[in-house]
């Protein structure tokens, strides 16, 4: 009997996101239809563009790399009962700090230089997430508004620093950016690696070794949340803080730890672009990545495996957005409409199902 309901739960956990995505695509299809295009044709064209060739896969993996980390950052906070809408600001601050540290250190081997730069990205994110975490823990201020405010402050602060303090001088480039990082602070691209397996992704493709860091973090977060004491505490506070307190867990400290962990992951979400692709911090490079992380976490049910698949999906959606620009006159923002629709359908679908189960248990 129990086995049966477990299987049903598992099946539902796979089916409900699929159903939600399908529903969102159908709704998006109506939007496309209302613009006078054939949605099936458009979808086929942009999906073919994103997934029909190895070059497209490379871009999808590149997009997914940051999304895995942004999604994990949101999910860890969710598990601890916190809603971190500040991933966007945290990854901007983390990215800038890693670039600045990477540029200011003297010449040294990769094995020392890179870990320091990586750590700086995490520390930047931790500081930015720690402030709302501290305010929540000590003063009970809701983290949602504060993390949003910290986003706006991060936009302004990083913009100020990259325009006035750490801007690369002597170049004509429309957007403010830092100088290029030395090779000892960067990660290699993966074109050659894929070619060993007979997949022809050219070296110019941006997919890089931070993909492995993000996959490693997926496993690490799983281990941390479900196999360690701190993970147990985070989940306990998240599911029932009153019971957790009675069980002897220090709630305030757990909230701060959760936000630190979430912020560290958010900071890491910047490395794909800063350390792996552009090799420099470009003003406002993130373009809403932190917010897509919310969609990834929700669709992935805050579980590392789910987040992996959700990241691949949204990574493909990004690529499809570029396809929209190339092949159609439909603004690529239709993809962000799809994202929002996916969140709503996932959230609603989840609630309906939970209540169906609750009702059945009554009898």
């Amino acid at each position: 009997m129990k086995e049966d309901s477990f299987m049903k739960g598992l099946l539902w956990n796979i089916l409900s996101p699929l159903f939600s995505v399908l529903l969102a695509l159908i709704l998006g299809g109506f939007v496309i239809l209302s613009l006078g295009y054939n949605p099936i044709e458009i979808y086929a064209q942009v999906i073919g563009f994103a997934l029909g060739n190895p070059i497209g896969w490379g871009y999808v993996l590149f997009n997914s790399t940051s999304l895995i980390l942004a999604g994990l950052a949101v999910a860890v906070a969710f598990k601890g009962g916190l809603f971190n809408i500040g991933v966007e600001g945290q990854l901007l601050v983390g990215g800038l700090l890693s670039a600045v540290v990477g540029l200011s250190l003297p010449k040294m081997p990769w094995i020392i230089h890179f870990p320091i730069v990586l750590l700086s990205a995490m520390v930047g994110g931790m500081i930015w997430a720690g402030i709302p975490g501290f305010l929540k823990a000590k003063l009970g201020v809701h983290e949602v508004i504060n993390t949003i405010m910290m986003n706006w402050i991060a936009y302004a602060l990083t913009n100020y620093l990259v325009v006035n303090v750490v801007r690369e001088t002597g170049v004509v480039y429309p957007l403010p950016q830092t100088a290029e990082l030395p090779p000892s602070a960067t990660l290699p691209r993966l074109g050659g690696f894929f070619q060993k397996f007979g997949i022809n992704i050219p070296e110019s493709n941006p997919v890089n070794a931070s993909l492995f860091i993000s996959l490693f973090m997926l496993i690490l977060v799983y281990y941390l949340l479900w196999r360690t004491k701190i993970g147990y505490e985070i989940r306990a506070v998240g599911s029932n803080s009153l019971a957790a307190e009675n069980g002897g867990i220090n709630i305030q400290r757990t909230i701060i730890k959760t936000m630190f962990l979430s912020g560290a992951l958010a900071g890491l979400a910047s490395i794909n672009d800063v350390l792996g692709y552009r090799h420099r911090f470009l003003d406002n490079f993130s373009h809403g990545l932190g917010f897509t992380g919310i969609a990834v976490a929700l669709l992935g049910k805050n579980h590392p495996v789910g987040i992996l698949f959700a990241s691949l999906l949204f990574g493909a959606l990004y690529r499809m957005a570029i396809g929209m620009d190339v092949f159609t006159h439909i603004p690529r923002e239709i993809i962000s409409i799809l994202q929002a629709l996916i969140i709503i359908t996932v959230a609603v679908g989840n609630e309906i199902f939970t209540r169906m189960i609750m009702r059945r248990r009554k009898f």
Partner: protein
Amino acid sequence: MISALFSWETIASAIRMATPLAFASLGGVYSERSGVVNIALEGIMLVGAFFAAVFVYFFKNPWFAIFMAGIFGTFLSLIHAIVSINFKVNQIVSGVALNMLATGGTTFLSRLIFKAAGSSPHLEGLAPWSIPGLSSIPGIGKLFLNLSPLIIIMFFTVIFSHFILFKTVFGLRLRSVGENPHAADTLGINVYLYRYIAVLISGFLGGVGGAFLSLEHARVFVETMTVGRGFIALAAMIFGKWTPFGSLGACLLFGLAEAIRMRLEGVGIPTQFIQMIPYILTMLILAGVVGKATAPAADGIPYEKEEL
């Protein structure tokens, strides 16, 4: 410089800046008094700003455009109501999703309709009003000269809302639904209905607040032009202890911060730091500079009607 900062012009501009916030903040008061957190106000304002621009662009009638901004704000809040009241989805998750929908949707439609990336053409706003008598007083009279009619409407809406919420049976019921929905239900008050009405009112007011931004403040629609004002309005509501007059007071404070911010531009302080002022102010206020505020007891908690 100091005298330029603290002048009647600064106060007049503070009132202007406070107006969109006050509409949204008032919307927040209705919604949260009924027990529904509405962080979708940010997106609602954006939708209001956008549709006000669209309707002025096509119909050249600002009053009609402002009304339609309210209607589209109401429509977005209707989704919030359905999702969070009927389906009992976490109200913050729903709000975030709707904010994303609003950002994506308005940018999408703006590119389709205005054909230009980033913003609409210049828009026609309302003809300004001056209050006869008051506007001829030297000094303070400047506050009553060439006012946007929406500013006057805003003040009346605040007074009216105070009356509605605290002096009528309807207001009493609406507040009881936010404090103790079970007790209200026992007394025969339809909890869902009252929450629906409150959330829809918040959508209308938020939409009108957004319309002020595009028609009266900027006279142009710019993508993502709300830049966190919906959240600042919510902070003002908390600062104002969930009351119409308190919220208005807090909004005037934020308006003053923005007015000072605008005056400070070009005096040597980097603009980015001046831009941070309202956000830092919001955080400081929420951190309890003015003492702890207590939300309505059932705020944010979905109501599950007991099945017998």
